[in-house]
């Protein structure tokens, strides 16, 4: 599924952030990326999604054998990549409904599929919004404008539920969430688990992994994966902090 080989990435043409990162996420698995601040966690997410200014200086990233790095962000999305942002953007004047429908139909068009009509779309949105306990009327307002932190994260989950990506990248999805919101968001993510879908859960804290249980845990430090293990690795990190494991790897 997702295969990252010896990835080197510089940000804004100078600063090397990822330095030889390799990672394989088979279909159907959830992998957590943990690491201290500044390790390159968000850089990994942005690089996979194709943000400008994140330059791959060497290495490769493929999704089902297909080179992702050669594609602009919208085509990666059409191939099934979805990055859930740590801080989702506010888009004034573009109703959330319009935004999601535009995205969905742009992806379908890119894949040569017919557009989804308004009645079916609305039916699906209503169902997903209800399961995320979102007020449907909120979706008529500008995307994320005036939304609380928890509402923005739910909006991200709503989008992924409608777009049905194959590779889900969650960047610090727990930040700014209280326990109730975290539970709802995690349930939304867990509902997306499927044998065809891979997930990369990027997080600083172990807390999120109590709710979204990973198959594998990787420690990212100084731009590389320095340790990998089962879910118990996250608990070790929570107990002992990053210092020892990062020092050992150095």
């Amino acid at each position: 599924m997702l295969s990252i080989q010896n990835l080197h990435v510089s940000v804004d043409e100078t600063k090397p952030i990822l330095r030889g990162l390799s990672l394989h996420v088979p279909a159907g698995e959830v992998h957590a990326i943990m690491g201290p601040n500044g390790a390159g966690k968000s850089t990994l997410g942005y690089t996979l999604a194709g943000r400008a200014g994140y330059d791959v200086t060497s290495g490769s990233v493929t999704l089902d054998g297909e080179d992702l790095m050669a594609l602009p962000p919208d085509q990666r999305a059409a191939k099934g990549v979805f990055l859930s942002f740590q801080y989702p953007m506010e888009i004034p004047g573009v109703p959330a409904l319009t935004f999601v429908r535009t995205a969905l139909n742009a992806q379908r068009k890119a894949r040569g599929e017919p557009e989804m009509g308004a009645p079916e779309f609305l039916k699906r949105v209503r169902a997903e919004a209800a399961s995320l306990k979102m007020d449907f009327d909120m979706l008529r307002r500008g995307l994320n404008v005036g939304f609380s932190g928890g509402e923005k994260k739910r909006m991200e989950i709503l989008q992924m539920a409608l777009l049905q990506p194959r590779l889900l990248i969650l960047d610090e999805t727990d930040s700014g969430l209280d326990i109730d919101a975290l539970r709802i968001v995690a349930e939304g993510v867990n509902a997306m688990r499927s044998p065809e879908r891979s997930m990369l859960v990027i997080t600083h804290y172990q807390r999120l992994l109590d709710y979204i249980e990973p198959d594998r845990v990787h420690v990212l430090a100084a731009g590389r994966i320095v340790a990998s293990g089962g879910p118990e690795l996250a608990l070790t990190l929570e107990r002992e902090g990053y210092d020892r494991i990062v020092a050992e790897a150095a």
Partner: protein
Amino acid sequence: MSAPFRIDLRDVSTFPTRRDEAWRRSDLRRALPNPVEPAPDLARPSEGGPFAAVRAEETTFANGRLPDGGVFARLRLTDAPHRLRFVTSAEQGGWQAGVDVVVPAGVAATLLETYEGQGGYVGSVLLSFSLEAGASLERIVLMDEPSEAVSISASTVALGASARFAQTVVATGARLQRHETHLMHPGEAVTVRMDGLYLLSEARHADLTTVVVHEGGGGTSQVCKGVVTDRARAVFQGQIVVKPGADGTDARMRHDALLLSDTAEVDAKPELEIYADDVSCAHGNTVGALDDEALFYIASRGVPEAQARALLMQGFIGEVAERIAHEGAREVLAAFAAKRLEALT
């Protein structure tokens, strides 16, 4: 009180220049170095214009002339919408016209005012609005003129107690295009909306100038948006003065502009002058490019870049049309703006 310049097209000494502060960014004398000869008569244009879809009464100036040859109209509006059109077709020459608009007590009127034409003409209109107690007026202005024209529209607005005045000006610029409004706000539960939108390309110039003077409390809300590309130039001058004793004033002004090219220019001059104590005033002003982070966010969901830009820009200007109460006029303006925006990008 603030008032527009009295311009006489036959006398260049009456043309404001850069030395006149209110015209510093739109030098009329430079645009018109010589007196302007009268434009020839024009056959009556057919009814309708940009707001043809809205059922309305109509008053049309053709090259500055009413059907009876007059240059001055008095309108007493009713609850039915009214189209006020200034249609010009002249390669050169110009015209001056005047309009007095009265909205009687208790009437809720809609005025659909359009500036349309062809050629390198000069048009100058002086309008005077008077709203009686409890009257309400929604004034929608669409200035869609040729790039060679010079067009000036200046208004004064006087409001009775509890009157409601709402204005939306949409301008696409010309060689020099200026829309100017001077409003005396008496307080006494009066509310004022003073919105604008400019969409400029090529070497077009549009100037939206408003002066609102609060003699008493009450509300004023202003949202002006603009998108400028090529070598176009926009001027936004929004002034709100809160006089001593105008306590309880609630005034909000926003001006946001998008610059799509390095050679485009926006001169923004938002001014709040507050001489009263118990007021709530806010203003914000931004001029910038499209937000790269927002563009990436939209693209990361599968929307191609050109479409993402269009979506972001539609959202950016959308608020102006949304604030229009008259549904038919709102639809016409939203469609007009969307089409114009497409041509800009």
